[in-house]
């Protein structure tokens, strides 16, 4: 087994997360975004704050399920969850739940650096070979893919806007630390401005 390609250890990871996220959000239009706690939030915010971003600062493991609830509530809108491998590992059962529901408008983009960067760069399970792409495929998520190049990132961006989900994209990024750029931590504010975008008080 070619571990570098399938499991996506550090050797395979040359993409930079701060280049990947702006490419995913390029010409985002009405895209609804949920970002998992830690670096994924900083990456989403660094790409430009937006009222259609819902940043998580806790509840680790919940990002994909928030994306599912949102995708089911707004079937005409496209929903992108951006999270890390550690956050996704904690909510791995939600991939099975998404596989049952088959939401065409939901993409989960995992920025897989194979480490827990928030807590001191300890290795995660994906360092040792856990493939979130394989897990998602096993859960019936048809669009389960590994991504290693910016061309593939650009293609994913287009797929998201076509509503070709459910997708789980395991994007292999290098485990380098970027400057922290911190979005609001006020959950009520983030909720209200997000709902206002969709016409709710």
């Amino acid at each position: 087994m070619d571990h570098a390609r399938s499991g996506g250890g550090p050797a395979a990871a040359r993409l930079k997360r701060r280049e990947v996220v702006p490419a995913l959000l390029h010409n985002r239009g009405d895209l609804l975004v949920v970002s998992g706690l830690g670096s994924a939030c900083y990456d989403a915010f660094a790409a430009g704050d937006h009222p259609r971003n819902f940043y998580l600062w806790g509840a680790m493991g919940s990002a994909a399920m928030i994306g599912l609830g949102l995708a089911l509530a707004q079937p005409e809108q496209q929903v992108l969850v951006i999270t890390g491998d550690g956050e996704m590992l904690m909510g791995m059962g939600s991939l099975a739940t998404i596989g049952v529901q088959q939401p065409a408008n939901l993409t989960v983009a995992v920025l897989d650096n194979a480490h827990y960067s928030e807590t001191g760069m300890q290795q995660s399970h994906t360092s040792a070979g856990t493939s979130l792409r394989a897990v998602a495929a096993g859960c019936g998520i048809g669009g389960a893919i590994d991504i290693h190049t910016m061309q593939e990132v650009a293609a994913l961006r287009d797929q998201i806007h076509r509503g070709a989900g459910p997708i789980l994209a395991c994007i292999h990024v290098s485990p380098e630390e970027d400057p922290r750029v911190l979005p609001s931590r006020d959950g009520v504010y983030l909720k209200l401005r997000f709902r206002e975008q969709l016409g709710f008080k």
Partner: protein
Amino acid sequence: MTPTPRWPSQIHDVLKSSDVRQVGYVPDAGHARLITLCQEDPHMRAVVLTTEEEGIGLVTGAWIGGQRSTLLMQSSGVGNCVNQLSLIRVCRIPLLILVTMRGEFAEFNPWQVPMGSITQQSLNLCGVTTYRAEHAEEVQELVQAAADLAFNGDLAVAVLLSQRLIGRKQWTK
């Protein structure tokens, strides 16, 4: 043979009139009838979960997307939700949970007692208001009151359906 209790369909009526559109659940014998009613309702999306904590994310996502939802779980599942409930409190998300109790009246399985005996206190510690239904006649009114409090007040409310109300689990036929 005991007649089919009416309270599950009464709960379904309350959920329907409250415009609940997503129902997250982990399969449970006490909720079996209500789960079927929600699955068969074209205006509701029944979402089977692998663990109850997924439901807290589901409710949060549904609400920021403009839909009301509810969760059906057993008392053991409440323990699985504890950290995720921070979402509800920090973002002030309306939450309505219907909990079938285990570990109390006529329980035969001691493994259900530890969580069942602290379910209400755990919810209260997490900022969730609790109502408790002991008798079938009070279920509809309590669930309606909980739904009103949750959805009109952006608050978290759980209704505990007591084990006496649900009835003894039939292990042998």
